[in-house]
C-alpha cells in the first residue's frame, strides 16, 4: 500500500486451512485493529451453514466491528443465486452493510447469477470482483453489462479485468459510481492492477471516484481521511 500510495484498504478473510471461517474473521478483525485506521475488514461466511452462518455474521458485524459481508461461491462451493444465500444477505441488509461477491467463476458466480441475487435485495449494495467475469476471450462481458443494467445496486471491481475498454465502457454507460479499483492482493499484483485505472481513458473525477471515492461511500469510510486511495483486497 505504501509503495503505491494507497491510503486505505478493505481486507477480507482468506480461505482458512480448517473448515470454519470464524477464526479467519477474527484474524481480519485483529489486522484491522493493528492497521492504524488504514484497514477496514469484512466478514466471510459460508451460506450453506444456514443459521450458523447468520450467527457468525451477526457476531462479526456486532462484536468484531467488521463492515460488510464477503461471499466466495467458488471456494465455499455454492451457487450465488441459490436461495441458501438469502438469509446471510438479509443479515447484511438489516445491518446496512454491503455484500462483496467473488465473481466471474464459472457455474457458481457468473454475472447474471450475481445479478439475480442483487435483484432480490434492491436495497443492498453488491460489489462484484473481477468485473463480474473471468474470461480471457471477453465472452462474459455482455452478461456483465446486462447484470449492471438490470441492477442499480450492483457495482464492479477492476481486479484482473480482461480489456481495459470494458471498464471504460461501463463508466461511460453506467457512471463512474459503479466501478471500484481493487487489486485482489495477494492473488493479483497491485502494481499492475492500479494501472488499469490510472492509465485508462477516465477523467480526473472519474479516476478519483474509482480509486477511492466510491469505496469510501460503499464501505462507510467518509469519516476517515479525505478522498483516500482505497484498495479492496
Amino acid at each position: 500500500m505504501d509503495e503505491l500510495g494507497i491510503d486505505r484498504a478493505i481486507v477480507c478473510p482468506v480461505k482458512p486451512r480448517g473448515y470454519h471461517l470464524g477464526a479467519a474473521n477474527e484474524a481480519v478483525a485483529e489486522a484491522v485493529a493493528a492497521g492504524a485506521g488504514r484497514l477496514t475488514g469484512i466478514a466471510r461466511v459460508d451460506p450453506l451453514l444456514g443459521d450458523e452462518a447468520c450467527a457468525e455474521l451477526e457476531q462479526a458485524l456486532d462484536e468484531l466491528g467488521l463492515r460488510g459481508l464477503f461471499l466466495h461461491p467458488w471456494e465455499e462451493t455454492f451457487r450465488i443465486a441459490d436461495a441458501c444465500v438469502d438469509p446471510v444477505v438479509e443479515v447484511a441488509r438489516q445491518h446496512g452493510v454491503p455484500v462483496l461477491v467473488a465473481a466471474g467463476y464459472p457455474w457458481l458466480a457468473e454475472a447474471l447469477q450475481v445479478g439475480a441475487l442483487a435483484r432480490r435485495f434492491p436495497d443492498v449494495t453488491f460489489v462484484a470482483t473481477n468485473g463480474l467475469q473471468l474470461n480471457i476471450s471477453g465472452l462474459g462481458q455482455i452478461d456483465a453489462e446486462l447484470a449492471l443494467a438490470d441492477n442499480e445496486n450492483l457495482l464492479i471491481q477492476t481486479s484482473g479485468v480482461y480489456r481495459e475498454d470494458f471498464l471504460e465502457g461501463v463508466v461511460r454507460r453506467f457512471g463512474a459510481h459503479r466501478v471500484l479499483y481493487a487489486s485482489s492482493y495477494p492473488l493479483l499484483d497491485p502494481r499492475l492492477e492500479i494501472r488499469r485505472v490510472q492509465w485508462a481513458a477516465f477523467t480526473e473525477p472519474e479516476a478519483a471516484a474509482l480509486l477511492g471515492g466510491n469505496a469510501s461511500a460503499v464501505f462507510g469510510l467518509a469519516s476517515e481521511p479525505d478522498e483516500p486511495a482505497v484498495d479492496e483486497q
Partner: protein
Amino acid sequence: MIVDAHLHVDDVPALGWKLEAAECVRRMDEAGIERGVVMTIVDAPEVNPLALELIVDACAAYPGRLEAFARIHPWYGDESLALLERAFALGFKGLKLHPVSTLAHPAGEDTLRLIRAAAEHNAPTLFHCGDEPLTTPYAVAQAAAACPDATIILGHMGGYFHVDEAIEVAEEHENIVLETSAMPYPGKIREAVERIGASRILYASDGPACSPRIEVEKVRLAGLAPDAEALVFAGNAVRILDGVR
C-alpha cells in the same frame, strides 16, 4: 525494441467491437512498441470471407509496423488450406486459431492439417489458450505433440486458471511457446522464464482493447534479467517472424 505478438483488427458489430489498425499503432506508439502482429477476431472463410483482405489493408497502411497472422476456420477442408497458402503468398507470418469461435479441437485432423501447412513455411500457429473448453493447455498440447515440427504459441498462456498447466506443457514440448497477453500474473512470467528459459516466451498485448502499455508494464514487473527481458520483448518474436518463408 518491443514487438507485440498479438493485436486485433476487425469490426464485429454483434459484439460491439470495432478494432482499427490506426488504434493499434496509436497504442503501440504509446507503449514504445515498434512492430505488432495483427489478426482478425473472426475467421475466414466464415464468418468473414474477406478476413485476409482486411488484414492485408491494415498492414499496407502501416508498412514496417504491422505483420499479419491469418485466422482460418479449419472446417472448410481444401478451401481452408488454400486460404492459408494464399495468406503466405500475401506475406502473412503465421496462423491464428481460436477454437471457441471455430468449435474445432486443437488436435482435430482439420486443425492439424493447417498447422502442418503453416510449419511447411516455418510459420507458427498461435492458439487462443485460456480457460474455455477446446482451448486449455492440455488440449493445445495435443496439437503440439502431433506436430513436433510446428511452433505452437499458447496465446494468454492459459488465461486465469490454466497458467500452471501452460508452463507444464511448455516444459514437456520444446515446440511450445508461451505468449503473455492479458494473463494477469507478472510473477508467472518470471516463473516461466525460470522453468523453460526466456527463448520461448513472447510479449503480447491482445490490444488494442487490452492496453499494450499495461501489458508491457506487466512484463517489466516480472523483474527479468535484461537479456531475458530483451528476448521476451523482441528477440524471440523477431526470430520467429523473420524465419517465415
